[in-house]
């Protein structure tokens, strides 16, 4: 093992809850084993905001709900050889994609923002405005799964995926032994 050159990995959390990143920590003490195989480049875990060099694996949590998500995701695609969508939001849009269900409306985004900031029953917003700071990224018309924005190589399902499936998949990918998931690992009931 030690003879192998270390792989570089990067991670990002887009429109997710950061739960999948917490799940990465659920690898627990095996993190030490994993760190023998990889160096972590751009990632919230290292607090590096930019790629320092090209990475072997990029891990994406969350789908795309705003323009910055798209920008980051495209950046990851350009800088990573293999891109993994981690968790249900990255794969399918997940909970944020509930707003895609506002159909049959002439202005679904407007309706969504109004309900979230102005008209919703449990809202206390004394300004009665939708936040609009110039630094805020623009929202997309709907929430997109990662695979609709860039090509995705692997998807690890779960909400959040277990530490086991993350560890197992990563170590197998890094050693070229990945042949698909064990059925027990993707059984959720």
């Amino acid at each position, binding site marked *: 093992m030690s003879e192998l050159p270390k792989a570089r990995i990067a991670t990002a959390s887009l429109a997710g809850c950061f739960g999948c990143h917490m799940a990465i920590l659920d690898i627990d003490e095996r993190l030490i084993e994993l760190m023998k195989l990889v160096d972590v480049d751009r990632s919230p875990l290292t607090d590096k905001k930019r790629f320092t060099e090209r990475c072997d694996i990029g891990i994406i949590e969350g789908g795309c709900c705003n*323009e910055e998500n798209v*920008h980051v995701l495209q950046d990851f*695609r350009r800088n990573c050889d293999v891109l993994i969508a981690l968790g249900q939001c990255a794969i399918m849009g997940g909970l944020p994609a509930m707003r895609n269900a506002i159909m049959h409306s002439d202005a679904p985004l407007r309706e969504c923002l109004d309900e979230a900031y102005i008209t919703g029953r449990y809202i206390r917003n004394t300004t009665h405005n939708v936040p*609009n700071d*110039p630094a805020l*990224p623009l929202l*997309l*018309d709907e929430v*997109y799964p990662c695979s609709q924005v*860039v090509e995705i190589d692997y998807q690890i399902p779960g909400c959040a995926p277990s530490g086991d499936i993350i560890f197992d998949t990563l170590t197998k990918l890094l050693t070229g032994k990945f042949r698909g998931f064990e059925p027990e690992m993707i059984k959720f009931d």
Partner: protein
Amino acid sequence: MDNGQNGSNGVASPVCNVAPIPEAEIAAICAAHGNDQHRMLDILREVQDRYRCIAPSTMDMIAAETGLTRIEVEGVASFYSFLSLTPKGRITIRFCDDIVDRYCGLKDVVEAFEDVLGIKTGETSPDGEFSLEYTPCIGMCDQAPAVMINDVIVTGLTVETAQSTAEALKQGTSPEQLVSDRFKDLTPHERALRMVENNIRHAGEVLLGPVPEDAGLNKAAAMTPTQIITAVEESGLRGCGGAGFTTGRKWRFAASERAEKHYVICNADEGEPGTFKDRVLLTERPHLLIEGMTIAARAVGARHGILYLRGEYVYLRELLEQVLEERRRRNLLGKAILGIKNFDFDIRLQLGAGAYICGEEGALISSCEGLPGEPKTRPPFPVNRGYLGYPTVVNNVETFCHAARILDKGAKWFHDMGTEGSHGTKLFSVCGDCLNPGIYELPYGHSVWELLEMVGGGDAAAVQVGGPSGTMIARDSFHRKLTFDDLATGGAIIVFNGERNILEIVEYYMSFFVHESCGYCTPCRVGNVFLQKAIHKFRKGLANPEDVDYLKDLSATIIETSRCGLGMTSPNPILTTLQNFPLVYSVVTKPNKDRIRDTFDIQSAIDGARKIAKRRSYIFDKDFTQ
């Protein structure tokens, strides 16, 4: 019946803005059909015809009369495209939106109607006089573009005739008067011919040549049921609707099933775009068809028959009713047919209401039972448990006609025609880019080239054999033979010349299947939408090589997991063109260099937010500072 009461107080329902409908009238319509829930389609058709919509209050009334729940009635009413929950115009004009019609100038015809009537397609005029809408193939591809104006068909339209037709309607001419000033004096057959040309280009020996009256039935009357079935079996006759099941075997299965009743159903729901052979048989050989059904009834011991006529062919209803009535009078239908004790058989005409899926055997039976036209789970097969649970023979119009001729001329006569495995003759309905579109009755075994020579389609670049669910072939396959074993077809042959865009045709056919999927099973309901979107991507030039694999994988899944024949054949336009026109796909496919999807358009995705926030994107708008 509170809703009905409210209605009579003059509070019109918000959905159906017509005069309140008296409960007594609805009750009378239901009573005319014996308050029978299995005649729901007839009841709803009549309500639709009379009140131009099926209002929520009427659904409650119908439910009460027939002993169903409101939601069951609504399930049927909302399934069929000729039934409407919102009011339609007094005159509803339906444009046949087939690809052939599009290539024959449909767009200009539609615009002419829209201009004169002052409404867009999909709208109803404010005074409630006119509705314009599109409908898939109405079986007039040999005389496209065609429209249905209420129950009247107008074919071969040009911009000029479309304008004059619309003007006449606007000035109060009735649809019937468009056909003839003496419409009332014409016989049903004359009326049909005034509206629609037969276009019989080549009459063969079996169906369209001279046919002696009831010769087959007379011979069958002297035979035992087993002898009849044996004769049909020995002739090698196979179903002419497309699937090609051996007719004799089907009859034998049904006959051997012990049951209180047996049924014989004729499938005259030819909805496959480009197919119109049954239209011509129904117009020119209705007696032969009924004769064939009567023979089948004798063979399997059925006393009841149903002739399921597609809603688009409603203009043939009177003609067929007249034929049935005449045969009843001549003791060729009814009790003790031809004086033979216990040979009782009668037929009712069941009209469809614009659903392609009802051409599928199980869906057709569902429709006859007054249910939404959804396919049934197989097995049990209809021959074991079909209409209302009784053994049922369902055959195509052409199959019954052939059977009657076989009984007259003998199995050997029929067996000697055609090729091994495909015996007898077949009606081909040819349309598209050829000089002589129409009906050709030919023995099985001709090559596509030979047929194209006959129809004047020598410059064909592609031929769709068997309609969208069949096979699209290129010139290098024109030597292939029209038989069950090589190129099977229910009769549709659509010719396309080199100027036609194959991907446009494929996308049209996929949108047809999306529209006509009954929605019961997910692979077909959702999968076809995905296929259509994927083809759209190819047309936009945004496809990668991997999208070809996606098309193949998704198609395989849909074929494997769909519940009925619609989903099992709906990917065919894609699969057969991928196989026979690979260059068409590869020329619009380009590899993706940075693996970022071209199909995702950030500009359109942020456009809404840009307008709401009233600012530009600091990431994606280059002139952000302005």
